[in-house]
């Protein structure tokens, strides 16, 4: 499955890009499995995703927990805890 990933704040800085399209392997079903899969893609991903529990994930603009299935999204976003307001 081809999926668009978008990154924000220090996740974006560490990975070194703001978005990309990746091929999600068939075995990767949940959000948590996607994070693990990405972490193995290189040291910039390793640096960004070192503490997966600090990573917030949104699928098609909605927050999801790490145990949720990915489904067939248009866009998956990875970012740090939010600090707006």
């Amino acid at each position, binding site marked *: 499955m081809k999926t668009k990933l978008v990154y924000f704040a220090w996740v974006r800085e560490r990975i070194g890009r703001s978005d990309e399209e990746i091929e999600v392997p068939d075995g990767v079903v949940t959000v948590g499995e996607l994070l693990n899969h990405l972490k193995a893609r290189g040291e910039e991903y390793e640096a960004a995703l070192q503490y997966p529990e600090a990573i917030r994930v949104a699928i098609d*603009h909605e927050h999801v927990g790490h145990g949720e299935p990915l489904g067939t999204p248009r866009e998956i976003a990875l970012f740090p*805890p*939010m600090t707006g307001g």
Partner: protein
Amino acid sequence: MAMRPEIRVQREDFDVTEEVRRMTNARTDVGAVVTFCGLCRDDGGSLSALELEHYPGMAEAQMRRIAEEAGERWLLSGLTAVHRFGLIRPGENIVLVVAASMHRQAAFDGANFMMDYLKTSAPFWKKEHLLSGASGSWVEAKDTDDAALRRWRGSAAD
């Protein structure tokens, strides 16, 4: 709920009087309007600016979800939330919430609720730029902000 929240994410500043007027103009059923302005602080004297990054699309969607939840909990005649992005200098506005109601406590509670959730669940991030020219760090999420959320859990509507 007839209430339609006004949600904006913008680079420009906002005008409080203007936003209040938008919600009270030509109506006589609004008895109370509460506004909250969040400003860029510089406690240490070393900050040049905050850089506000956001997730376009989701930021608006999430702000709208929070506003609609506020509209279900309290009898609000209107709710406005405006969040700025880009470089914001100390003393400048970052965020505005305006809640209008017949009664004052609903307006206070609606605005307060909106701010607590904006802080913790709307996709905005702040990076410090220092006067020294050095790139500062990303502002970290605060435990006190998560604690502030808890008081709204399971609390009955107005």
